């Protein structure tokens, strides 16, 4: 039980993000909840590639007894997480631009009052 702490951190992050998306009424708070969910998913992706007692897979100034592939962490999940982080930044920028435009049109940030389809 004590060894699975990164998985428990992932579950806590996703639950906090889902609570913010479902139960809050401000658009900016819902955007923050989506960003927290995205952070939890990135942590899960990195945690899948862990080898017990390993170091980073970089050969510059590596100690001599750690050069066999059984002592290095897997490099492929780290490359996929890099792509996922950049895509998260792009989605966040578009969400904030749309929130600014909604505020200029409706003069409010409450999602229960943004129901009309024409201005």
């Amino acid at each position, binding site marked *: 039980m004590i060894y699975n702490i990164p998985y428990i951190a992932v579950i806590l992050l996703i639950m906090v993000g889902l609570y913010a998306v479902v139960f809050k009424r401000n658009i900016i708070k819902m955007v923050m909840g989506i960003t927290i969910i995205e952070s939890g998913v990135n942590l899960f992706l990195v945690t899948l590639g862990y080898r017990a007692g390993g170091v980073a897979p*970089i*050969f*510059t*100034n590596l100690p001599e007894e750690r*050069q066999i592939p059984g002592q290095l962490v897997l490099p492929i999940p780290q490359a996929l997480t890099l792509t996922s*982080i950049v895509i998260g*930044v792009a989605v966040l*920028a578009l969400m904030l*631009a749309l929130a*600014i435009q909604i505020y200029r049109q409706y003069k409010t940030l409450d999602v229960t009052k943004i129901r009309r389809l024409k201005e």
Partner: protein
Amino acid sequence: MDETSKIIKTVSSVMFPFVTIYGLYVILHGHLTPGGGFQGGAIVASGCALLVVAFGSDAIAKRVKESQLSLLESIGALGFISLAFVGIATTFFYNSLAGTKFLFGKIPPYGSNPGYLSSGGLLPLMNLAVGTKVIAGLFAIVLILAIATRKKGGRSK
């Protein structure tokens, strides 16, 4: 409350060259130490965002036009695609500069070694192209979001 004080302007003007040099170091040494194009580009873009916060979006928008940032980002994207076409004789993304006797062609000995900067083939050039693209893109996003939320004069024209 609109203008920041003189201390903030002076300190951020002094810190900006150091942040830029550290970001360029992370971009250039992407094939030896942890880092690369995306990470170093984010570091330099956060240094530029420091300038936008300290001096206000009006003063920065007078000196940097949006079309210049768009040109820089397009150069980065086209450079990345044309570097992918260099080794087209074998396949699409082939690393054709590793093992030759040109600038980046040295192959490091197997195992632990102090890093040699001129190794890596096409990887440092791709890092530079992606780094330029990320710097211009993130700086443009921060500048446009700061201009659109000004206090007065932000109404539609």
